[in-house]
């Protein structure tokens, strides 16, 4: 023991005198301090909105992430070296010769360096703590200083993490005597972390994913996943089962690894020098081989031969080295995990199409590519010196570019090998899934022409950094600085790709449009960064360190001496190419297109609000008729929309000013004719025009406004983000291609913290529900009610163009194809135009009770026929259900139109549903277990023809309840009818999880369903649960009748528009009095249950029946808008009690109810006995999870026999 303490003390003393200890401690301190200290530093870790920057949860996340990033490096560097240090310095023999025993020697060294690492990492806590009490914070963004979260973090998470990392790296390094292998072993740990993360979003495996995370990030995340902002700000130190299990597992692993090392370690010196060579033949042969005289040649050909040879040697050194092989293996593991994670998300399955696999490769390999390029640049450049063959090489008659180019070539070969391995992995994955449309050509194109560039440029940077700084670890540091800069510049609103090293504009591949308009930017940036890379290589060639004595001065002299006329010419030429490409990019991104960094966008928003909000209440005429002629030139990425808007002054007052907004700055307003109006002012940056009318527009007066809006997308933007007009698959909507009248608050800055930064007044997220003024508008539009609509659309002859309405006529004129669409019923002023080379599948739905048929048309990309029939089926089922349950369908047609995956949504326009190719068209419908989301999403969008296009809420709180929530319910009802009630729990489980998770990152306040402010987690996820439960409680029939009555009351109404209270009245009428409390809990409050089956005991009765004695906890909580919960004062609730038996049906195991009835509960603890005929397996309270419960799984439990 005293020996151990001696060694420990020695180790600590050794570390204390060592500068790295203090450097790393300082580094950790800086990271902790800056994260909390600078604005927005904690938003990465959830510290945004109402969650304080030093909330215990955000702090914990921050420390965990940095412990992973820094801890891995620090611990490995310190702990792995603890024993190897003696070995490397050759003084191991001295220690071994002392009476020191193995255990104290190893444990002392390990313990000492581990404590040192822990000390360093605690700098994070210190920095964060200090930063949190700095005076410059917005007082609303901080909570009072508490030591608990720091102590908890350092003790429960960081120390065990360092112990695990340390144990593994120490053991591997000590046993192999190679520090490098410990990094490789840790990479393995990282892969465990990554792979386990692929399962966290799968609700069947999320607990396993949480428990198996070696670093505890997801374990902690899982434990606090449903914590509300209030809880995140106050609760510091959870000790939940998953945390305890997780910590126990990994601490156990750490101890096991250590114990193994202690057992295997021998305190002896390694046997010398590996395998001995064959015994040397004694004397030189008397007859010496005569040396042939050869004439060496030094022309370019022989230099190239040397380069080839050297490259071969370098490539072999790289790809045959153990770490590379291990990294490639890890990459494969990660790719497989990533591929599964990518195609199975949230209970849905996507086909493993090639462009999705390419995304998997891009995302899954990048970490490994980065490690390889940084690490091997150092290894390759310093390889000669490491093996002390540098003097041999440097005295050879080869030019410097030979080894330089050879080493770079080896790096690139390594990159290619990794990418090829990844591609082979995903191809196997596709084949394994039975998917055979491999598109190998796309693989080659994407990897070589889209993905490889950035790796080439970064490899060059890594090699050049090593050459120039001429020190392996400083070279690594230089690369890390580059990576930090890459991340930091955009964060500071320096977003242009021209100066962010190796930044390329994002490229999105679409099956419909290929690489489309992204090609030009990709080519330009390839030339730009390619030239930069060549330039760097030319500089590196000058700076190449040769020989044995290279102080800076002589390297500069040598570089100058090497600067021959040819090199100057090469550098100049490359620089010209670089600058030329840069100029071309600059012209494209900032002249042809607009470059607006985030801070400037914010400034514009601020100015918009400050200058024009004063006009918000000015009266404006309403648009009542829209007629457009849109000419699309897809190949030229050009469109012209000429329109006529019929305006009516529906107000009581004369109007003498028109405020006209054209929101898209890329649009050229070629004409805007308002009769009798003169342009009073025009703010070009904001597209805000004020016209004065010579003769004020009297109440009831009407006139036509004509406009001509044109867009011609030229070249490429900094992010190539305008994907509305493309060669195949154009899709734009009325927002940009129509003038809007009057100030609209939707362009204001919404985030309260950002508003405070700009000294903007507090702002409502949505007008209050009793705001009478706001009720005059729908939440879709502020300048129109219901409009008539007609459109003439023209496009290329090989494409079909579609707008809302019925096709009246189709003709060809001047080599172009024209389509005339007219709408026969009034619609919301919200329309879209699409054009693509479509294949069309047509069908017809006939109402069961007779009546006019409805035409169904699916416009799709030819290769995407997979789910077209499923969509048609869903449309038919939906029309069946909605027309029967709610009201007639107002159109004679339903159309679905596929558009490229530049956006990932489906959206319902009148009789027209644009639908992203990535959503549904490539879904894999073959798994009967998975949620059929093609069917579901289609039904949801069809439902919007009722909920939005018949009934539309006013622009106040609760508006989306009548659109999104009811569409959600309608689709659920259709899905239940098609797939049966057994399939619903799986879907609802995900909805519950999304609701509970998302409310924990609410940035302003959570509202009850009735007052939802366009909050997706409420109007989609919570609403699904609420309406499904409501239908179960009061009956689907009663609920549908209420909805039908509601449509009858408010459908197609004129302003003021309906609000959620109107719907609520209908729901109240449909609800029996005993469930009135339930309705209030669902719609007026934020209600959470904590129901549990505490015990379920089985007693066999004499008559052959079975008694289940249940002990049930029923507990109801109300949360306020910040998530502070208070128990309900009274309890008088009807909740289902169920007893189940496990059965096999169609090869599946299902729980079949033996008993399922509503019981009334008025107290927390309850005991009751249920008698059933069969031997039950499971029983509990609210077994179907109809009620919102933070721990839904403890509602039931297995029935146990009485002891």
């Amino acid at each position, binding site marked *: 023991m005293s020996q151990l303490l001696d060694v420990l003390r020695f180790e600590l003393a050794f570390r204390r005198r060592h500068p790295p200890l203090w450097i790393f401690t300082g580094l950790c301190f800086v990271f902790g301090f800056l994260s909390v200290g600078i604005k927005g530093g904690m938003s990465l870790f959830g510290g945004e909105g109402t969650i304080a920057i030093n909330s215990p949860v955000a702090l914990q996340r921050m420390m965990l992430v940095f412990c992973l990033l820094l801890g891995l490096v620090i611990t490995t560097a310190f702990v792995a070296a603890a024993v190897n240090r003696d070995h490397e310095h050759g003084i191991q023999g001295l220690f071994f010769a002392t009476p020191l025993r193995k255990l104290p020697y190893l444990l002392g060294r390990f313990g000492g360096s581990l404590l040192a690492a822990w000390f360093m990492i605690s700098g994070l806590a210190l920095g964060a703590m200090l930063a949190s009490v700095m005076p410059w914070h917005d007082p609303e963004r901080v909570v009072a200083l508490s030591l608990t979260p720091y102590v908890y973090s350092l003790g429960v998470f960081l120390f065990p993490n360092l112990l695990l990392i340390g144990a593994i790296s120490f053991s591997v390094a000590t046993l192999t005597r190679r520090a490098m292998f410990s990094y490789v072993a840790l990479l393995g740990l990282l892969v465990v972390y990554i792979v386990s993360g692929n399962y966290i979003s799968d609700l069947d495996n999320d607990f396993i994913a949480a428990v198996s995370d070696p670093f505890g990030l997801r374990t902690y995340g899982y434990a606090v996943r449903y914590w509300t902002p209030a809880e995140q700000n106050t609760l510091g130190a959870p000790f939940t089962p998953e945390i305890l299990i997780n910590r126990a597992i990994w601490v156990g692993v750490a101890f096991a690894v250590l114990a193994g090392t202690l057992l295997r370690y021998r305190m002896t010196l390694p046997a010398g020098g590996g395998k001995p*060579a064959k015994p040397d033949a004694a004397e030189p042969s008397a007859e010496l081989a005569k040396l042939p005289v050869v004439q060496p040649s030094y022309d370019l050909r022989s230099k190239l031969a040397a380069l080839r040879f050297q490259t071969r040697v370098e490539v072999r*050194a790289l790809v045959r080295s153990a770490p590379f092989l291990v990294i490639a293996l890890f990459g494969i593991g990660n790719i497989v995990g990533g591929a599964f994670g990518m195609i199975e998300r949230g209970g849905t399955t996507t086909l493993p199409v090639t462009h999705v696999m390419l995304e998997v490769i891009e995302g899954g390999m990048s970490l490994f590519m980065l490690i390889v390029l940084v690490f091997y640049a150092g290894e390759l450049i310093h390889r000669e010196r490491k093996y002390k063959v540098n003097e*041999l090489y440097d005295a050879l*008659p080869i030019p410097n570019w030979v080894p330089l180019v050879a080493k770079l070539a080896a790096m690139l070969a390594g990159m290619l090998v990794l990418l090829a391995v990844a591609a082979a992995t995903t191809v196997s994955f596709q084949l394994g899934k039975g998917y055979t449309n491999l598109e190998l050509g796309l693989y080659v194109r994407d990897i070589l022409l889209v993905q490889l560039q950035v790796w080439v440029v970064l490899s060059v940077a890594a090699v050049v950094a090593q050459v120039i700084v001429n020190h392996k670890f400083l070279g690594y540091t230089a690369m890390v600085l580059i990576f930090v800069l890459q991340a930091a510049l955009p964060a500071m609103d320096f977003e242009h790709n021209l100066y962010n090293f190796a930044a390329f504009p994002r490229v999105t591949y679409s099956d419909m449009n290929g690489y489309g308009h992204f090609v030009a930017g990709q080519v330009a940036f390839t030339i730009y960064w390619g030239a930069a890379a060549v330039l760097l290589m030319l500089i590196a060639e000058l700076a190449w360190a040769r020989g044995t004595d290279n102080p800076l001065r002589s390297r500069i002299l040598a570089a100058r001496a090497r600067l021959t006329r040819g090199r100057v010419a090469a550098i100049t030429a490359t620089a010209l190419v670089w600058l030329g490409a840069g100029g071309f990019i600059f012209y494209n991104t900032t002249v042809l297109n607009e470059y607006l960094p985030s801070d400037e966008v914010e400034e514009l928003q601020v100015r918009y609000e400050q200058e024009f909000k004063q006009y918000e209440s000015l009266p404006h005429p309403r648009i009542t008729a829209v007629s457009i002629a849109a000419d699309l030139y897809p190949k030229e990425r050009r469109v012209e929309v000429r329109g006529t808007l019929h305006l009516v002054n529906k107000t009581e007052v004369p109007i003498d000013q028109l405020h006209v907004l054209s929101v898209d700055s890329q649009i050229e307003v070629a004409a805007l004719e308002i009769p009798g109006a003169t342009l009073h002012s025009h703010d070009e940056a904001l597209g805000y025009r004020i016209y004065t009318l010579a003769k004020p527009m009297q109440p009831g007066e009407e006139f036509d406004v004509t406009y001509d809006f044109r867009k011609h997308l030229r070249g490429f933007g900094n992010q190539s983000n305008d994907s509305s007009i493309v060669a195949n698959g154009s899709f734009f909507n009325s927002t940009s291609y129509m003038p809007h009248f009057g100030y609209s608050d939707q362009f204001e800055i919404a985030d309260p913290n950002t508003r405070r930064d700009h000294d903007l007044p507090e702002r409502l997220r949505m007008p209050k529900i009793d705001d009478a003024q706001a009720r005059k508008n729908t939440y879709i539009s502020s300048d129109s009610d219901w409009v008539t609509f007609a459109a003439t659309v023209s496009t290329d002859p090989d494409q079909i163009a579609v707008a809302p309405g019925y096709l009246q006529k189709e003709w060809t004129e001047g080599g172009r194809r024209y389509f005339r669409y007219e709408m026969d019923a009034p619609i919301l002023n919200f329309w879209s135009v699409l054009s693509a080379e479509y294949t069309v599948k047509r069908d017809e739905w006939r109402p069961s009770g007779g009546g006019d048929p409805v035409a169904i048309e699916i416009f799709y990309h030819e290769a995407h026929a997979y789910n077209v029939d499923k969509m048609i089926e869903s449309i038919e089922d939906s029309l069946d259900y909605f027309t029967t349950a709610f009201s007639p369908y107002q159109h004679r047609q339903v159309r679905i139109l596929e558009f490229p995956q530049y956006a990932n949504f489906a959206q319902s326009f009148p009789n027209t549903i644009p639908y992203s190719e990535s959503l549904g068209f490539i879904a894999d419908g073959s798994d009967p277990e998975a949620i059929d989301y093609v069917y579901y999403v289609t039904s949801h969008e069809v439902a919007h023809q009722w909920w939005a296009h018949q009934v539309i809420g006013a622009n106040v709180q609760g508006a989306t309840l009548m659109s999104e929530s009811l569409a959600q319910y309608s689709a659920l009802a259709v899905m239940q009818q098609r797939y049966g009630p057994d399939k619903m729990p799986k879907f609802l489980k995900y909805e519950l999880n999304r609701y509970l998770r998302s409310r924990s990152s609410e940035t302003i306040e959570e509202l009850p369903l009735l007052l939802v402010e366009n909050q997706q987690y409420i109007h989609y996820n919570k609403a699904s649960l609420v309406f499904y439960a409501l239908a179960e409680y009061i009956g689907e029939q009663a609920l549908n009748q209420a909805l039908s009555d509601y449509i009858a009351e408010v459908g197609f109404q004129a302003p003021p528009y309906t609000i959620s209270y109107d719907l609520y009245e209908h729901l109240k009428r449909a609800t029996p009095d005993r469930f009135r409390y339930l309705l209030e809990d669902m719609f007026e409050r934020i209600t959470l249950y904590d129901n549990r089956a505490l015990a379920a005991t089985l007693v066999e009765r004499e008559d052959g029946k079975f008694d289940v004695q249940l002990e049930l906890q029923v507990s109801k909580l109300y949360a306020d808008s910040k998530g502070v919960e208070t128990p309900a004062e009274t309890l008088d609730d009807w909740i289902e009690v169920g007893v189940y038996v496990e059965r096999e049906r169609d090869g599946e195991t299902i729980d079949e109810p033996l008993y399922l009835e509503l019981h009334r509960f008025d107290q927390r603890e309850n005991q009751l006995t249920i008698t059933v005929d069969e031997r039950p397996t499971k029983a509990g309270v609210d077994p179907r999870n109809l009620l919102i419960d933070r721990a839904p799984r403890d509602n039931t439990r297995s029935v146990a026999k009485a002891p």
Partner: protein
Amino acid sequence: MSNSLVIDNLSKTYGNGVRALRGVNLTIPTGMFGLLGPNGAGKSTLMRTISTLQDPDTGAIRLGDIDVLRDKDAVRRVLGYLPQDFGVYPNVDALTMLSHFATLKGIGNAKQRKQVVEALLQRVNLWDARKNKLGGYSGGMRQRFGIAQALLGNPRLIIVDEPTAGLDPEERNRFLNLLSEIGEHVVIILSTHIVEDVAQLCTNMAIIAKGEVLHQGKPLATIDEIRDKTWKKIIARDQLEAHERDHDVISTRLFSGRTLIHVVADAAPGDGFEPVEPGLEDVYFTTLSRSRAGDKADPAHPTRVA
């Protein structure tokens, strides 16, 4: 074409202040040239400078008509260099490695390269071990591999820096034999601190210490210079100090527990001294001891060398 190497007033001071070379002048004709000096004398600095691996502060070097410091590539084409302390890639075999060096030396033709490499491996007697990994080579084998790579491409200038340090006597002999077989038409510079190496092999030599050339000449002629001026005596250890005070002691060496000293003196010093037939070693020590006598004030240098 004259093939000799002329070193003119070469000086070098390192960044840490060490003055490695102080105005070195040497003319090295074809044949084997020994550069003798104690550790730290500046031998390796000189070797590396000639081998184009580093630059001097001042001075010039010419090999025939090549300006060594300017036209490094021309030197490298005719240079064979065996550094003092070099390593190998442990996982590569000798044949592959030597072929690799041959390519880099401009022997691009595969057939020729094969001939040359195989001949060299036979010549340095590594033929049987040619497929073995270099990591498993003994010190002597490694040195022979080193000389093989230095001989690639018919060098005119061969520089071997301390090649025999750390070799056992047998390996050392084998290595020196190999060196002596190399043609007489090239310049070979052998740097060493082992006097015997020079005595056995070299036709010309120089002694260098503290960055200065102390002596240059032919070994035999040099020995003649101190013939009849060298004396020896066996003394007790505690008498050494007194003898050093009274005589010009050039070397001391333990001999059966007592101390054998050599002194130089023009006439017999008496006092029990006997004449001794001088060797190159005596020349070497004499030279060093005279140089030390010149700067006695410098205590950093050891007074005993043997």
